[in-house]
């Protein structure tokens, strides 16, 4: 990485091309909402969203804003607020290609990409309509069974995201990114061609120099760009660093029930009128 510190979140998001297969983490795992705003602002189109393994606000907004053509996920949930309203609306309208999955299958597909293997098998899943609706998933005989044909097992193809995008607390100036125990972010970075990260803060120390931070750090080798974005997950939480902004989330769910309400929310979010609590203030 030649220039890990991009001049802006917008410049970082600009590196996600239309049509990209874009991997994003679950709402609890560090979502790059500031970069998502930049994606919507620039009018990104035709994204294939890979949720690792589910998404919520981020996917729902991207879908509502017309940025997504395909979604591969084990679920779209706004927690206690239920299914994403724009997602449900798009499903009903038939405007979204659905690749319904189950959580471990998404992890296994990314792990297969991480290992450079064409597929990984998993137990379970057989007899589910998820499998019935995924012609890209195969059922093979377990070659190690006495009678392979009599021991069917699901084979999941590797998932190779063009881009992985997430938000983390820290990066250093070399581009190493600290993700603590949110290990799926490391798998995403290993699996993706390009990994773009927003962080609360870029620090001067070398995150790899200390055994303690190194254990939870993605080496810069896998990181294509880092942008500083304080409160970059707002209105979602960043692990236990800061809480989700419940007022804004509730307002979103209420607004997103209708096209007009969503459009209004989007406009206010994009032009900065929408502001959260203390955390979001810090971002201004």
């Amino acid at each position, binding site marked *: 990485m030649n220039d890990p510190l991009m001049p802006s979140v917008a410049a970082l998001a600009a590196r996600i091309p239309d049509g990209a297969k874009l991997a994003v983490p*679950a709402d*609890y*795992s560090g979502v790059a909402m500031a970069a998502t705003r930049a994606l919507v602002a620039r009018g990104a189109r035709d994204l294939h969203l890979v949720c*690792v*393994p*589910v998404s919520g606000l981020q996917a729902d907004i991207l879908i509502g804003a017309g940025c997504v053509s395909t979604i591969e*996920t*084990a*679920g*779209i*949930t706004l*927690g*206690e607020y*239920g*299914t994403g309203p724009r*997602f*449900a609306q798009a*499903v*009903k*309208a*038939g405007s979204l290609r*659905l690749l*319904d*999955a*189950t*959580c*471990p*299958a998404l*992890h296994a597909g990314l*792990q297969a990409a991480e290992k450079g293997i064409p597929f990984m098998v*998993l*137990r*379970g*899943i*057989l*007899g*589910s*309509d*998820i*499998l019935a*609706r995924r012609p890209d998933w195969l059922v093979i005989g377990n070659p190690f069974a006495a009678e392979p044909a*009599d*021991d*069917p*097992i699901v084979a999941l193809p590797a998932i190779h995201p063009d881009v992985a995008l997430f938000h983390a607390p820290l990066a250093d100036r070399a581009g190493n990114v600290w993700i603590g*125990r*949110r*290990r*799926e*972010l*490391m*798998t995403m970075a290993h699996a993706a061609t390009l990994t773009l990260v927003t962080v609360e803060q870029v620090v001067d120390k070398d995150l790899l120099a200390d055994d303690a931070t190194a254990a939870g750090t993605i080496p810069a080798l896998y990181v294509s760009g880092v942008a500083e974005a304080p409160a970059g997950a707002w209105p979602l939480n960043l692990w*236990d660093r800061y809480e989700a902004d419940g007022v804004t989330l509730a307002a979103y769910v209420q607004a997103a029930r209708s096209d007009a309400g969503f459009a209004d929310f989007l406009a206010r979010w994009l032009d900065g009128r929408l502001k959260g609590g203390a955390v979001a203030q810090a971002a201004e």
Partner: protein
Amino acid sequence: MSPAAYSRQELLIAAVTRLLEGCRHVAVGASSPIPGGAALLGRALSGGAMRVSVLGSTRNNFFTNGGVELFDCAAQGRVDAFFLSGGQIDGQANINLVGTGPYPRSDVRWSGSFGSAYLYFLVPRVILFREEHSRRTLVEKVDFISAPGVSALNVWRRGGPQALITNLCLFAFDKAKGCFRLESVHPGHTVEEVLDQTGFTFDRPGNVPETPPPDAAALALMRGAIRAEIAETYPRFAATAFAAGETA
């Protein structure tokens, strides 16, 4: 103790806790305050021998290998019990977390299948939990099988449905016959009410017992330590679910 001496949630928590007896490790998914409370109560009653992972909790979640760890852990045989729910659940214990009507353009779309299609096969005791007991939720045949209740004999399957608990009653699942059996009806409800509100057929004994109420020890624990613990993940639930103070 009078019937009003415990809340509906306390009854359910106590009933679920009984289903967890002997488990070494119980995992609880997101948005599951009653299963979470039951697991924490089971741990307290076990003297700490039972481990509990509450997804979404920081204090009661000891995983350090990212989102895949719960699934790997289950595959290793280290998760004894888990909870699933469904927008629809049918008489063969198939669950539907995807939506109603024709797929993919569901009339009502729910969040999605999450880990159900996997954990239903891997975890020995899966407890189905659905508070709403109606012909809308308990149907003859689900519109979409997120995870099947039973499998062909040659399909590798370590786990599956053990029981289904609702606001009205507790069903046990008979794996050999592939159908539910009414185990007990909660105090204040009747077998007729269950028959009337259930969209699938089920077995039942001639005499259906009443779901036992929580005993004093369980109530004391629930209203003390468990309420405090569960407040970390579900503050609103903790504030309203427990019948404060009436422990004996």
